[in-house]
């Protein structure tokens, strides 16, 4: 295959999409920037929409002239959303069912991943395939009996119902974390283990003294992903925590009804998109803060932990 039969226009069109790595012309660069910026804008569009509308008063929302910029910054939406969400107590509840399972899951899956990476034992392949299977099987299949089980154990509406599966490596996306650590520990040369063994170190000592310190990046990335995934997880939370232990996401899901209960008597403060978007923004705010302070760990983590394989 060669290009010599192409008209200049065709070549241009091709450069349009793919550029070249060595001879990036001004034109192709410009196109790439325009593409990226417009797609980036599309991506941020819901966020900007949310921010803009949550700062609009009722009259601004119905006013067709007011588009992106409100006539005046109106914080009433946030005030009311804050009250309806019962923000700080709910935040605390959310943090417990987010931080604790994320932390526990990270530590447990590190141990499991290390076991798979460093030792040869019988049926290892079978167990690894089963780890993969736990990722692919839809939660719904086993959730009803798990619900009954937790009901019998009297764990429903308690944070422990979220934490317990995480403790046994069966939490939200645990399989991915096991594989991240499996992949990570496999990259550490086995000679390191052997040298330590010759010096008389036991396997657990080696794990804590060599494995764990080397895996700090994997720990951080896993913890952050665990944090985000647990924060955004709603299905399991709505079943197990329910109305008895409502976290942020559940509050948002029930926001409309809770709002109308709270402001039933005040006709002027009817629910509108401004309040709903303010509530949505308040829900995602904690994770946004985490993301923008340490986003390097999220983005580069995917590359550094070798999830894509060698």
């Amino acid at each position, binding site marked *: 295959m060669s290009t010599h039969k192409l008209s200049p226009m065709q070549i241009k069109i091709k450069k349009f999409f793919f550029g070249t790595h060595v001879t990036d012309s001004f034109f192709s660069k410009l196109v790439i920037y325009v593409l990226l910026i417009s797609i980036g804008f599309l991506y941020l569009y819901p966020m900007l929409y949310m921010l803009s509308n949550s700062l609009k008063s009722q009259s601004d929302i119905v006013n067709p002239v007011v588009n992106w910029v409100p006539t005046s910054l109106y914080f009433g939406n946030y005030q009311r959303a804050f009250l309806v969400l019962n923000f700080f107590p709910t935040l605390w509840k959310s943090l417990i069912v987010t931080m604790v399972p994320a932390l526990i899951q990270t530590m447990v899956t590190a141990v499991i991943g290390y076991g798979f990476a460093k030792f040869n034992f019988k049926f290892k392949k079978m167990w690894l395939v089963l780890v993969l299977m736990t990722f692919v099987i839809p939660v719904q299949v086993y959730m009803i009996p798990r619900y009954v089980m937790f009901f019998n154990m009297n764990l429903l509406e308690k944070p422990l119902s979220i934490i317990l599966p995480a403790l046994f490596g*069966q939490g939200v996306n645990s399989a991915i974390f096991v594989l991240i650590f499996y992949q990570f520990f496999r990259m550490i040369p086995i000679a390191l283990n052997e040298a330590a063994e010759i010096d008389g170190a036991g396997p657990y000592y080696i794990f804590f003294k060599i494995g764990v310190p080397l895996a700090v990046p994997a720990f951080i990335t896993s913890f952050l992903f665990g944090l985000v995934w647990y924060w955004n997880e709603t299905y399991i939370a709505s079943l197990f925590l329910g109305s008895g232990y409502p976290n942020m996401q559940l509050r948002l899901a029930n926001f409309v009804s809770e709002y109308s209960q709270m402001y039933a008597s005040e006709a002027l403060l009817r629910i509108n998109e401004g309040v709903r978007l303010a509530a949505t923004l308040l829900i995602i705010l904690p994770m946004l803060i985490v993301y923008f302070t340490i986003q390097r760990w999220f983005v580069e983590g*995917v590359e550094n932990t070798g999830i894509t394989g060698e």
Partner: protein
Amino acid sequence: MKKHRISRVLRENLVGYSFIGIWIVGFLVFMLYPFISSLIYSLSEVKILGTGIDIQFQWFTNFKNIFQQEEGFAFVEALIDFLKELVFQVPIIIVFSVLIAVLLNQPLKGRGMFRSIFFLPVIISSGPVINELISQGAGGANIFESYGFISIIENTLTPAFAAPIVSVFSQIIIIFWFSGVQILIFLAGLQKVDRQIYEAARVDGAGPWESFWKITLPSLSNLVFVNLIYTIVLLATFSENKVIVSIKSNMFNINTGYGMASAMAWIYFIIIMIIIAIVALIFIPKNEKIKGVKR
């Protein structure tokens, strides 16, 4: 000497199992046991009594009822809708993430910033949040409506086909939002391709078009498979997915209960598995066995 070796193998087995033992316990208690129970529930009438649950085995009655009862019709309809959307959404997400990854792989200013933007949705997209955004019109529906795009589709295609396409376009931004992790995975894959290969190809007369099809895409083929599976699982387990909502509401419905909800879950499970199997058959990287799948 031989005795020593045997004891060493045994020791390695013991140590290995001591590391993964907690997973095996968890697997048996929180996966296998519920999995089998769920199968039994789906074949039984399950009643919740004050003292506990009462399970009456009744073979395939629940499965038959799905096709005879009103709740069952709603479930089947949700399932068909979901599958139609899946067929449109998965290719969109994969093609979109390859495109973005290729763009981001160019030496650009502000590359890091763009990368953060494209990953941002992973941080914030939960079921209720996306629900709110779509219902409040932030999903991009208005962008496409204002160009008359949607009415064109509605007028030219039969309703059965137009409906899923329209729904795809009215949520196009949210669909893009599901590609954060995939973009990063593709990008990481692209960065491992040796630049010298491109230069060598160029010396041999290959243009960017050939380079893309002959070097870039083949180097991503493993990751296409990984991302396909990831995307299917992501969409199939998304908490606002109609099928999942339907199963959950039937769990607490007196007419259906845990038994029929379990039967629905099993139908869903089997269909997802069939889809994944088909994708695996078509896309599984050659020369690689199952163990390489997630790498």
